């Protein structure tokens, strides 16, 4: 690192004065760069993941008692930064599961997340993720995340990007314990993993 720094500093010393005289416009750029910009479209990766989440509502069965009544919604929750923009809402709009309309909710804290059916956890910090999982581990919530240690932490479904394609890992035992029943079709395509083991 020292070598790099010394090279860089030597370089900077060798820069013609004009660059430093030009410092004012850099300042101008800094000042002018007002934080604006439209909500960005999600990348293809998250478009696909949003559609996967929708598909999970169709390929997983939740225990009947997780719905207060016949018309109550099936809730997909997102905790942490929302990577989908409006895309997930668009994907599920008008969709139902056995008569339950599918809706999306965004959560700030894990307390409220207890009452959803599926939770996409987009928290980069491992311990925060752990905290969320711990909080809802007794509830029939299908937890989904990209995090590599998600399964070890007790998460149920993990998106794995392999060869640039999205694959699934499902912790089947843990799903069953919570009364969540993934369809055989889903299981056929996913890697079934055992808690505590690597992956």
């Amino acid at each position, binding site marked *: 690192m020292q070598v790099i720094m010394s090279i860089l500093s030597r370089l900077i010393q060798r820069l013609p004065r004009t660059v430093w005289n030009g410092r004012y416009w850099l300042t101008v*750029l800094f000042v*002018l760069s*007002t934080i*604006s910009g439209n909500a960005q479209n999600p*990348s*293809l990766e998250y478009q696909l993941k949003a559609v996967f989440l929708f598909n999970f509502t169709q390929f997983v069965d939740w225990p009947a008692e997780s719905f207060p009544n016949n018309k109550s919604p099936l809730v997909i929750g997102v905790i942490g930064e929302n990577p989908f923009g409006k895309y997930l809402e668009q994907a599920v709009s008008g969709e139902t599961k056995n008569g339950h309309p599918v809706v999306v909710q965004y959560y700030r804290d894990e307390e409220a997340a207890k009452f959803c059916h599926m939770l996409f956890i987009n928290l980069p910090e491992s311990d925060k993720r752990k905290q969320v999982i711990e909080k809802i581990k007794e509830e029939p919530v299908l937890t989904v995340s990209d995090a*590599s240690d998600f399964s070890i932490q007790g998460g149920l479904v993990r998106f*794995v990007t392999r060869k640039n394609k*999205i*694959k699934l890992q499902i912790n089947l035992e843990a799903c069953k314990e919570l009364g969540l029943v993934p369809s055989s079709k889903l299981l056929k395509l996913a890697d079934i993993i055992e808690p505590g083991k690597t992956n």
Partner: protein
Amino acid sequence: MFSVEWSFQGFVSLPCNADFCNRLARVFSRADLDCNPILSIEMTNPIITHPLRSHASWTFVTLLLSFAPALSFSQARNKPTAPETLKKLTLEQLMDIEVTSVSKRPQHLAEVASAIQVISRKDIIQSGAKTLAEALRLASNLQVAQVNSSQWAISARGFDNVLANKLLVLIDGRTVYTPLYAGVFWDVQNLILEDVDRIEVISGPGGTLWGANAVNGVINIITKSSKETKGLYAEAATGTSLPGLGSVRYGGQLAKNLSYRVYGTGFRMGHTVDSNAVKVNDDWSMLQGGLRLDWEASDKDVVSLQQNFQLQAYYDHTFRDFRNNFTEDLKTFDIEWQQSYEHGHGNQLNYGLNLRMMDHKVTNLLLFQFLPERKKLYLYSLFLQEEVALVPDRLHLTLGSKIEHNSYTGFEFQPNGRLSWTPAKSQTLWMSVSRAVRTPARIDRDFFLLLTPELPFIGGSESVKSETVIAYELGWRSLPREDLSLSLSTFYNTYDHIRSAEPGPEPFFIPITFANGVKGKTYGFELAATYQITPSWNLRGGYTFLKKDLKVKPESRDINAGSAESNDPQNQFVVQSSVEVLKWLELGTLIRYVDRLPKPAVPSYTRLDLRIAFKLGKSFELNVVGQNLLDKQHYEFIPSSPAPRQIERSIYGKLICRL
């Protein structure tokens, strides 16, 4: 791991008509290949005129038919696909969609185990670059120097020269080098930059995948499909170094699956100045027209699935008239097949076959000759590569080799071993050992410069072998945060059989003949970063350090003492800032520092380019671009001939209309 390399469009170029396409589509549907052929026909016809000392030339590129279904998806990535479209797909199909070749999302870049830099269309436009060669200045892992108004010296990891021959350049999968000297005539590589999707610059050998000439790097220029360039685009510019530029492109839909674009572009590039800052007559102009048709056989929406095979072929015809009666006529036929086969848990076998025939013909001058005048160069190769997941998602080993046969040196082997370790999702550490070759070009074997018709002064030699490199690379990519990406690539290359010029017998020491008398090593590192400071402010930059140690071998008496093939800066860095200040105002800044060049000596310089863009309503835009603002003029490269030229400070304005 090698997703980048596999990102090529597949092209088949055939003498094709609608009936033929239909037949072909039927063949493929009958074969049940679940394939979505895309036919691309591209024709360009540039005419160049240099008033004084150079040439006119035209290029004709024709008929490309591709089976690259995954591609249309990645190209459409800026516009989200309608959820309805994706929801129609089965889970299997969803799992089979490639997220992109090299996604803009840094997560994926983090997993790429090579020294790649991606220049996006946005980066190009915000830099104010006028030509493709100028746009390459954005890649900090390239040595880019303007020699005069139309000539450029561009290379990666050194060996930069007007006749640089260790870099492979592809435009939409089509190799654009000339077998004359295994380099690129940069003046004819003209595109409407608005229609470029991205430029991928890979430094380091790519011989295993791309074959000979990818010794030090690969530039992969990808233009948009005509499906993405619908409507009218027109631009007109003028300025101090650009007396005039005008382009019109129109794209549309002819039938449900058939889109097209036609374009015409023309410019006059301004002159450079000599050592006394007096202007010289090297200004030049170009007129170019082109047509591209993209046809998709399937009714599927933009969503199409990634195939495990690709077939690509093209035909390319270039004619260049050097205006002194020397002409070059090159016809290239190329066909390539690649297939991948997944087995075990995350293992993949890739293999491919490539056939290329280059029919190269020159008209010689009395004292400047390539013998024979016409030569057919055949190249065929087999490539085999196995990717093993030692620990799935963590540790990958890739072993492969290209076995290539060429008309000059016979069989060449270009193996590569690569290990990549992804300790966390945001980090990849990779190392690689590879061998690549630069096979002889016509200049090495067939060239004669004569003093009288009987007395050669410089002569090619039958004994010239391939130049070789063995490259050791170690790299690291990291994404400490969503908005920040860092990459460090280090390399240690050992070269052998580099071209030398050997004096002839006494007393006159002529003819001078080419041999392989130079060897040596280069080492250095490339540091690159991108930082999205705010959604509207993007910063990217890089620093490249390069050290060379070339020696003349004991048996050689190289007249240039090993220095002829390269003239490279030891340090260089690039910083680009692009800010969308307001909805109607953009500011682009490009700073490029290039260290001094040793021989012929060129002092170090710093370039500053500024671009201000005003959006006037929905469809109009006014750009004001200042280039090379820090110096009144400076040298960027001094060639052995013609005379050295300085590049001046310049400014131009451009009016753009998008309808």
